[in-house]
C-alpha cells in the first residue's frame, strides 16, 4: 500500500507565483524600455544593465554573506527593482552613481528590513530620492533624445515639466513656454526625462498587460491619474495661462510610470481596494501640489514615498467590504 500524504485543504493551488508576478511586471516594462532604447540609445542600455546587474549582485552578496540565508535572486524582484531604478535615472548617469543607487535600493530600503515583502518604502523610489538629494546636478541633467551612440557625454536639456516650472517662475504664461514638445512627441516619448518615464503609449501598453495578466488591479493607477487629472483640470479651467492642462500633467514627468509601475508595488501599497483608492488619491494630490506649488518641477517620487509611510495607517482604517455588512440588495 502506498503511503498517503495527509494535509489540510485546499489540496490544489492556482499556480500563481512570486516569479510569475515579478517577471510579469518586467515584461510589462519592456515596451517602455524599447522606446527608451530608441530615443536614448546606448546610454539607456548602459544605465539599465548597470542598474539591474548591481541590484541583483548586491542582493546576492547580502543574502549570502551578511544574512547567510538561501539566496532568492531568481525570484525576479531584485532585477525588477534594478529595472525600475534605471527607469528613474537620466540615461547619462555615471556608473558609480548608479551603483550607489542600487546599494541604497537593495541594501538600505529592502534587505535592512528583512528582504522581499518586509520593506516599508519602495526600494527604487527611496534610492531615486536619495540620489536626487545627493547628486542633484547629475540627476537633473537630461540627455536630449536622439543621441543613440552617446552615454555620459550626451548633450542635455530640460524636461517639459522643468521648462514649465522655470517659465512660470519667470512670470511667463503657459502659452509662452518655449521648446515644449508636441502632444505627439509627449505620447511617443520624444522628450527629455528619466529614461523610462517618457514613453506614454508604451507605459499604457504595460498597464494593459498588467491588468490582463491580473498582476495588479486598476484601483491605484486610476486613483493616482484621476486625481491628477481632476485637480489640474480645475486649475486649468480657472486660469489656463498660469496652469498647464491635465493632458500635459499626465503625459510628462513620472506620472504614468509612477502611477502604473511604482505606486502599485505590492509590498508598500495598501491591501484593500478602498485603501488603494485612498492611497492613489494621496499620491495624486501630493504630486499635483509639489508640481504646482513646490520647488521641484516633479513630485511623483516624493508623493509615493510619503504615501508608502502612510500605508500601515491606511491598512488599519480602510478594511475590505465585509460580507453581510451592507444592507441587503
Amino acid at each position, binding site marked *: *500500500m*502506498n503511503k*498517503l*500524504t*495527509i*494535509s*489540510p*485543504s*485546499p*489540496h*490544489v*493551488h*492556482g499556480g*500563481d*507565483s*512570486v516569479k*510569475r*508576478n515579478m517577471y510579469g511586471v518586467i515584461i510589462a516594462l519592456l515596451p517602455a524600455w524599447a522606446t527608451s532604447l530608441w530615443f536614448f540609445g546606448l546610454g539607456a542600455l548602459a544605465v539599465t544593465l548597470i542598474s539591474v546587474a548591481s541590484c541583483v549582485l548586491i542582493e546576492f552578496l547580502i543574502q549570502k554573506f551578511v544574512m547567510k540565508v538561501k539566496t*532568492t535572486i531568481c*525570484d525576479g*524582484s531584485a532585477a525588477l527593482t534594478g529595472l525600475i531604478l534605471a527607469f528613474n535615472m537620466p540615461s547619462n548617469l555615471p556608473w558609480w552613481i548608479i551603483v550607489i543607487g542600487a546599494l541604497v535600493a537593495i541594501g538600505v530600503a529592502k534587505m535592512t528590513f*528583512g*528582504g*522581499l*515583502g*518586509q520593506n516599508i518604502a519602495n526600494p527604487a523610489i527611496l534610492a531615486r530620492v536619495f540620489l536626487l538629494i545627493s547628486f542633484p546636478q547629475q540627476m537633473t541633467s537630461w540627455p536630449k533624445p536622439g543621441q543613440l551612440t552617446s552615454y555620459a557625454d550626451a548633450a542635455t536639456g530640460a524636461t517639459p515639466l522643468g521648462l514649465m516650472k522655470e517659465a512660470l517662475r519667470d512670470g511667463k504664461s503657459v502659452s509662452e513656454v518655449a521648446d515644449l514638445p508636441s502632444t505627439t512627441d509627449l505620447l511617443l516619448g520624444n522628450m527629455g526625462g528619466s529614461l523610462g518615464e517618457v514613453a506614454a503609449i508604451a507605459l499604457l501598453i504595460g498597464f494593459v498587460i498588467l491588468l490582463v495578466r491580473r498582476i495588479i*488591479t486598476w484601483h491605484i493607477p486610476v486613483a493616482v491619474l484621476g486625481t491628477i487629472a481632476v485637480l489640474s483640470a480645475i486649475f486649468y479651467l480657472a486660469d489656463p495661462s498660469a496652469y498647464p492642462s491635465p493632458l500635459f500633467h499626465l503625459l510628462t514627468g513620472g506620472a504614468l510610470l509612477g502611477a502604473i509601475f511604482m505606486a502599485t508595488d*505590492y*509590498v*508598500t*501599497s*495598501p*491591501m*484593500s*481596494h478602498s485603501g*488603494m483608492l485612498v492611497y492613489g488619491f494621496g499620491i495624486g494630490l501630493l504630486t499635483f501640489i509639489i508640481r504646482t506649488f513646490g520647488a521641484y518641477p516633479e513630485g511623483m517620487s516624493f508623493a509615493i514615498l510619503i504615501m508608502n509611510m502612510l500605508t500601515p495607517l491606511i491598512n488599519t482604517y480602510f*478594511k*475590505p*467590504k*465585509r*460580507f*453581510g*455588512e*451592507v444592507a*441587503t*440588495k
Partner: protein
Amino acid sequence: MLKTFSIGGIHPAANKLSAGSAIQALPVPEVVKVPVAQHIGAPAQPVVAKGDSVKVGQLIAQSAGFVSANVHSPVSGVVDKIEDFVDGNGYRKMAIVIKVEGDEWLESIDRSADIKREITLEPADIVKKIGEMGLVGMGGATFPSHVKLSVPQGKVCDALIINGVECEPYLTSDHRLMLEKGEEILIGVSILMKALNVAKAYVGIENNKPDAIDHLTRLAASFSGITIQPLALRYPQGGEKQLIDACIGRQIPSGKLPIDVGAVVQNVGTAYAVYEAVQKNKPLIERVVCVTGKTLARPSNFLVRIGTPVEKVIEAAGGVPDDCGKVIGGGPMMGRAFTHLDVPVIKGTSGILLMSKAESQRAEPSNCIRCAKCVSVCPMGLEPFLLAKVSAKGLLDRAEAEHIMDCIECGSCSFTCPSNRPLLDYIRLGKGKVGAILRARAAAAKK
C-alpha cells in the same frame, strides 16, 4: 449577465472528469461498517446488538437529541460487532459492522421505479418523516435535515434555495443526479417547499452544466414556484452564504444563519433523498459517490451503500493507481485527506478524489509579498494574510476583532497565494482557539 455572489471568488480548473459517466449501482459488499456519527451533532445510540439479524432500511442507531440523526442498516445480514474504529480523519468513532447476507429490504420501502408525484403528508409530518429516515445534508456538511426544516419561532422562511452548484472541482455526483433523477429532485423540492410553507424555490446551478440547467428548466415548467437559476461559474458559489447572495441577493450578517434572511438551503442530493424518504419511505442508506482523479483508470459515479469500504469503491473505478499520493474525501478545495483507506463511505461522502504523488505535494512557501490577492479573492471580505499572521502569533483578540470566525474555510486564499503560504492552515488554527474562547465566554455568561 448571469447572477453570482458579490465578493471575491476564484476560478479553479474544473477537471470534471466523470461528468459523462452515468450513475452505476455498485454491488453490495460482503461487510459494511456503519459509523453511528455520520452527521454534525450527537452520535446516534445503537439499538441493535451483536448477533441481531437486520434488513435493509432497518433502524440500527437512534438519534440522540435534537441535533442528531437516525442511522439505518444499508444491507441485510447479521450484526458482527459494534466497536470503535479509526475514521478517515484519524478520529476514533463507534461503528456497527454488519456481515451481509442476501439483500432483503424492509417491506415498508417502496422499491418500484414509479415516480410518485402527489404529496399526501402534512408539513409537520414531512419534517418528522425526514428526521425518522435519517436525512442529513448530502453536500458534505451532513447537518441533520429535519433541524434545518424546523424554523425557529419568530423567524420566517420565504425562500428555499436548492444547491445544484457543485462548485468543487472534479466532483460530478450532483450533476449526474440532476440529469438522471431530475423529476424526483423537483418533487423533493416541492415536498421541502410544503414543509417550510414557502411559495418560492430557487435551484442554483452554475453555467458549466448547461445540460442540467436545460433539463431541470424543462421539467420545472410543470412544477409551481420552482425557478432554475443559472449562475456564473465562480468558486465558492456552493457555500451557503454565497449561494443565497447569488440567488436572491441577500447577505447573511456576521454570526447569523440563513433563516435570519428568510432562507433555507438544501443540496440537490438532499432533495432527492427527501423524495425517496417521503414518497418511497426509504431511509438514507445509499448515496451517489463520485470517484475521480487524473491518474484513475475510470473516473465514475457510483450509487453506493453507506458503510461500503472506500477501497472497494476505488477498485470499481480501476483501483488505486501506482503513483497515488493522496486520497481525499470530498473535493480538492474543501475535502479532507484520508489517513487510510479502510474507511467506510458515509452519508456525507460526495466524492473520493485520488491525486498523484506530484499533485499531493505543496510548494515551498516564501515571504508574503503583500500582493493583496488573498484579500481580493476572499468571499467573506476578510484579510486572510492578516488573520494568518495574527493567528500564528497567537494574537487571538485581534483575530476575533478581524472577524476570523466569519471565515468559511473555502481555501480561496491559499489557492491564490503566489508565495504558497498556508494561509488557511493558520486561520483554522486561530479559529479553533478563538472558537474555544467564545464558547467559554458564552458558558460563563450563562452562569
